[in-house]
C-alpha cells in the first residue's frame, strides 16, 4: 500500500469572457509516495503544487483523475482522521486562543475530550508555543501562526502530513525550527508530503522529490540520483583574461575579476579547455570538480530562468 497515489489528476479552469477557453492548471499528474517517506513537491510559483494539494484535501474538485491516500479514495471522509494539512500562509479564527483552536480542531478530527486534553499541551510544546497557549490568535506573529498551523496539522496524530510551503515567510531561525519539526515527524515514521520552492530545504529533508512545471510533472527521483544527473562539471580558475573570449564557447559560465577568470566547464570538455588555455599562455590557478545541485536539476527542467531564492 502506498501512502499517496495520484492517478491522472487534471484540473482545468474556464477562462475568458465567455468562460469557454480552458486553462490547464494540472495535466494528468501521476505520482506515488511511499509510507514513511519525506517527499518534496517542487516547482516555481504557479506550477500547480497548491492546486494538487487543494484537490487532495477536497477544496477543489478535479476535472479528471483520482487519487488514493493510505489505500482509500481521497474523497473518503474517514481517511481525513489520518491526515493533517497545513495550507500556505494559513489563517485561523483570530478570536480563538491557540489552545481553543487545537481543542476545536482535534474534536472535529474525532478525538475525544480526554484525549484532547492530554495531547494539546505536548503538541504546543513541540512547536514551541507552550507559553502562548492562551493568547488570542489575532495577536500572533506570522511565525507563531505557522507553528500553530503545524500544531493543528499534527494534533490528531495523523499518519500522513501535507504541508504547503511550510517555510514561507519565516526568518532563518523559524525555518530552522520548522526543518527540525519535519525531521521529527519523519523520525516518528510519518509520511510527509510538502511543497516548496526552496530547494536547499528539499535537499536536506527529502528522500525523494518531484519537479512540476506549468502543471506537468518534469521529473521524479531520489535526490542523490537527480543531483548526479546534472553533475560532471568542473570549475577552472586562471590568470589571463585575454584567453576568456577564446574559450567562451566551452564554458557554461564565467566571472572575470581583474585578470583572474573563474569559469565552469562540463567535465567532458575539461581537457580541451586546459589545452586552449595553455595555447593562450594563461596561468592555471586551480581546477575543482563540482557536485551537481538540485538547483541545477531544477533549472534544467524548468525553462523559465527565474531567480530562485535559497
Amino acid at each position, binding site marked *: 500500500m502506498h501512502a499517496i497515489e495520484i492517478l491522472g489528476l487534471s484540473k482545468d479552469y474556464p477562462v475568458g469572457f465567455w468562460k469557454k477557453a480552458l486553462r490547464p492548471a494540472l495535466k494528468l499528474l501521476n505520482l506515488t509516495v511511499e509510507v514513511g517517506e519525506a517527499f518534496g513537491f517542487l516547482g516555481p510559483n504557479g506550477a500547480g503544487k497548491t492546486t494538487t494539494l*487543494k484537490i487532495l*484535501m*477536497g*477544496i*477543489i*474538485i478535479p476535472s479528471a483523475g483520482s487519487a488514493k491516500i493510505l489505500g482509500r479514495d481521497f474523497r473518503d*471522509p*474517514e*481517511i*481525513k*482522521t489520518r*491526515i*493533517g*494539512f*497545513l*495550507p500556505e*500562509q*494559513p*489563517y*485561523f*479564527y483570530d*478570536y*480563538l486562543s491557540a489552545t481553543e483552536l487545537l481543542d*476545536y*480542531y482535534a*474534536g*472535529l*478530527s*474525532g478525538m475525544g475530550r480526554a484525549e484532547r486534553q492530554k495531547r494539546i499541551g505536548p503538541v504546543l510544546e513541540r512547536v514551541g508555543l507552550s507559553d502562548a497557549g492562551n493568547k488570542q490568535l489575532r495577536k500572533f506573529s506570522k511565525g507563531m501562526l505557522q507553528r500553530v*498551523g503545524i500544531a*493543528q*496539522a499534527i494534533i490528531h496524530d495523523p499518519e500522513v502530513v*501535507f504541508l504547503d510551503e511550510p517555510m514561507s515567510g519565516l526568518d532563518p531561525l523559524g525555518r530552522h525550527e520548522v526543518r527540525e519539526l519535519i525531521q521529527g515527524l519523519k523520525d516518528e515514521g510519518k509520511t510527509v508530503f510538502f511543497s516548496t520552492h526552496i530547494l536547499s530545504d528539499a535537499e536536506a529533508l527529502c528522500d525523494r522529490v518531484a519537479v512540476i512545471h506549468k502543471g506537468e510533472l518534469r521529473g521524479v527521483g531520489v535526490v542523490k540520483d537527480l543531483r548526479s544527473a546534472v553533475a560532471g562539471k568542473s570549475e577552472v580558475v586562471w590568470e589571463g583574461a585575454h584567453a576568456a573570449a577564446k574559450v567562451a564557447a566551452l564554458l557554461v559560465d564565467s566571472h572575470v575579476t581583474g585578470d583572474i577568470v573563474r569559469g565552469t566547464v562540463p567535465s567532458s570538455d575539461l581537457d580541451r579547455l586546459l589545452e586552449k588555455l595553455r595555447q593562450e599562455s594563461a596561468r592555471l590557478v586551480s581546477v575543482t570538480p563540482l557536485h551537481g545541485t538540485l538547483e541545477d536539476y531544477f533549472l534544467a527542467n524548468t525553462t523559465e530562468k527565474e531567480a530562485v531564492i535559497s
Partner: protein
Amino acid sequence: MISRLSAITLNTFREAVRDRVLYNLVLFVLLLVASAPLFGEISIGLERLILVNVGLSSISLFGVIIAVFVGIGLVSKEIEKKTLYTILSRPVRRWEFIVGKCCGLLVTLVTNTALMTVGFYIALLATAHSLHRSDANILVAIYFIVLQLMMMVAITLLFSTFSSPIFSAIFAFALFVIGTFAEDLKNFAAMASGGARWLVTALAYVVPNFASLNVISQTAHGQAVATSLILFNTLYAVLYSAAVTAGAVLIFERRNLK
C-alpha cells in the same frame, strides 16, 4: 456526526459572542427605557400598548439585522480568510459545515431574543405595574419572530454560499421586505392571468410568508393566537428553512473554493 455538528455550532456561537454581537442588547434596553414614557405623554393608557409595539418591533428588527449581517459572513468570510481549508481537510462533511454554521447563528439569535424578552417583561412590569394572563400571548409573538429569524438565517446562508457579502445582504433584506407582504403577492397573482399569473404565484410561494408570522399587533391588544396557527406556522417555518438550507448545501458542495 453529532459531535462535529455541535462543535461547529458552538464555535459559531462563540465567534458571534466574541465579535460582540450581543452588545446590541444595550441599545435595545436604552430604546425600551427611553421610548415608553415619551409616548405615554401623548396619550394616557397607551403606554403599555406602545411599549409592546416598540419592544416587539425592536426584537424583530434587531434580530433580522443580526441574522443578515452575521449570516452574510458565515460562509464567505471563511472562504475569503481561508480558515475553511483546515476545516475541510478534516473529516467534516461540507453539509455538516453549513448546517453547523446555520445552527450556530440560530443559537446566537435565540439567546439574544431570550435576553431581550427578559428585559422586555421587566420593562412591561415597570410600566404596567402588574402582568396579566394575556401578557403571556406576547410570548407567542416572540416565538413567531424567532421562526422568522430562522428563515432569514437560512435565506442569508443560501446567498452567502455563492454571492459576495454585499449582494447577499441586499438580496436577503429584499426578501425580508417582500416577505412581509407575501400575501399581497398572492392577491396580485389572482388578478393577473396566463403566464404572468403562474409566475407571480410561484414567486409568492418562493418568497417567505412573514405576514402570517406577524402577530405583534394582535398580542399587543392582549389577544390570543390560535393553537392551530402556531402549529402550522412552526411546520411551515421549519420546512421552508430546511429546504433553503438544503439548497445552500447543494450549492456549497459543488463549489470550487479559491
